[in-house]
């Protein structure tokens, strides 16, 4: 666990905490972008180049913009009238701790099962491409179909609004 890992982990956690605690919603969106980039750097530290850059390209470049647009086009950008902290914070804390415990247990269990490799295999983009086209072609096509359906759905929703407005 090197120094770099601790720094990046601190950055990610700080981003996540800020996203939760800040009052202004757009500030929260920007903080969550910091958390995304922290995750991307963690991928890069683990030598997963493709995953890291794709994380930046997709999350910081597109998802963050989407979140921000959504905040701006609805009323989220006004300061909230009631407090940011909800009244049932104790229940929320308990549930979050429960989820974290389950996930942590699952990861640690699977870590015990994985074979100990001395050298990390280098996965190039070529390997990822090959795998996507041979072994994982069905999930790829399903994801493509899902994206197409989502886009068509968005167009239909917007179209419906237009005819309603007219």
């Amino acid at each position, binding site marked *: 666990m090197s120094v770099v890992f601790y720094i990046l982990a601190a950055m990610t956690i700080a981003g996540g905490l800020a996203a939760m605690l800040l009052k*202004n919603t*757009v*500030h929260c969106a*920007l903080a969550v*972008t910091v958390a995304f980039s922290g995750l991307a750097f963690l991928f890069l530290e683990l030598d997963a*180049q*493709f995953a890291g*850059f*794709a994380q*930046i*390209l997709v999350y*910081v*470049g*597109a998802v*963050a*913009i989407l979140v*921000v*647009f959504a905040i*701006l086009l609805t009323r989220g950008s006004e300061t909230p009238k009631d407090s940011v902290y909800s009244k049932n914070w104790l229940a929320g804390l308990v549930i979050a701790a429960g989820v974290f415990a389950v996930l942590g247990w699952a990861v640690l269990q699977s870590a015990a099962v994985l074979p100990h490799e001395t050298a990390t295999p280098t996965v*190039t*983009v*070529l390997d990822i491409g090959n795998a996507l086209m041979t072994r994982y072609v069905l999930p790829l096509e399903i994801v493509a179909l899902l994206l197409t359906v989502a886009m068509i759905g968005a167009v239909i929703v917007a179209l419906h609004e*237009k005819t309603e*407005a*007219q």
Partner: protein
Amino acid sequence: MIEKMDQIFVSLLHWLISFLPAFLQPFVGVVICVAVIVCLYPALFALAVLLERKGLGRMQNRYGPNRVGPFGILQPIADGVKSLTKEDIVPLSADAVVHFLAPVVLVVAVFMGFAVLPMGRNMVLVDMDAGLLFYFAMSATTELSVFMAGWSSRNKYSLLGAMRAVAQMISYEVPLLMSSVAVVMITGSLSLTKIVAAQDSYTGIFPHWYIFTPWGFAGFVMYAIATTAETNRSPFDLPEGESELVAGYHTEYSGFKFALFFLGEYVAMFSISGLGTTLFLGGWSAPFSFLTWVPSWIWFFSKIMLSICVFIWVRGTLPRLRQDQLMNFAWKFVLPMTLLNLFVAALWHFLGEGWQRWVFCSAILVVAYVAMGLVEMRSDHFGPRKYRYAE
């Protein structure tokens, strides 16, 4: 001798770091390269600004600036002094932290893109395996800074300009990536050095640049359109249209922060034309086989400056596109053409050598272009305008 001139910067770097102990050498080498990039491109930016003003002037039948030095050469210095000494006005209700960070994020993201551009033989800062992906990741970050600038100014016009700019940049990201994917497909690698190396051969005197293939030419044209839109450059400069939105998302910026936005825009232009030359124009390779004695870095920078001249030329010629025309163009024309281009590039690869593939691929592309142009881009909307929300 030719070799020495070609590798002069590399040998200079090696000589400089040879004075240091071995464990410091890579680190200091990288720092020196970064320092050179950070000093060189703003200098080129000053040159480009001057070139633009004089070039636009000549195209508009007038002199450009010619008072400051002989032929106005010292004008960028005057501009620099002006932007440094102007008062930095931050609106009272603006979000101070985000307002400050927006130009910083822009400049950082833009300079990061230079890390993977091969500026000459053996002259890449970081030879990454997924270099192209890294480049696009960095250029996606610039959109975020545009939005931050527009929103933090707490100004309706800035916000409107920022929304338009972000919508435009996102819409044109897709054709940008798709036209680059055709190149990646044919080369078989995302690494920019390998892409340049694949174009570095000659048949007779003609080079194997990708622009000289049908799919490469179409891809280059669409890449050029997409880059003009990505850098908010005329004719796609509605977000910063001076007659519409004052200055769009950088209305509320003055002094040095505005200079940083301006710098960011021009350096982004350099960076993206650098990528375009790497992908389509052969990077640092010479245009004819008898010209390979000229150092490779001269070719790279000449091609970049040529691209900048074309940018300026197009700016002086075309009127601005309206937002809906811009979007229509992106989604209805450029995107289908890039998808078709991918298909044609694959066909090119699988048809093997010979004249058939030239004829086939060119025919498909030309027919598709004409058909799409006549069908999609016709303007039969003459007549009274229909308003979507005003009725």
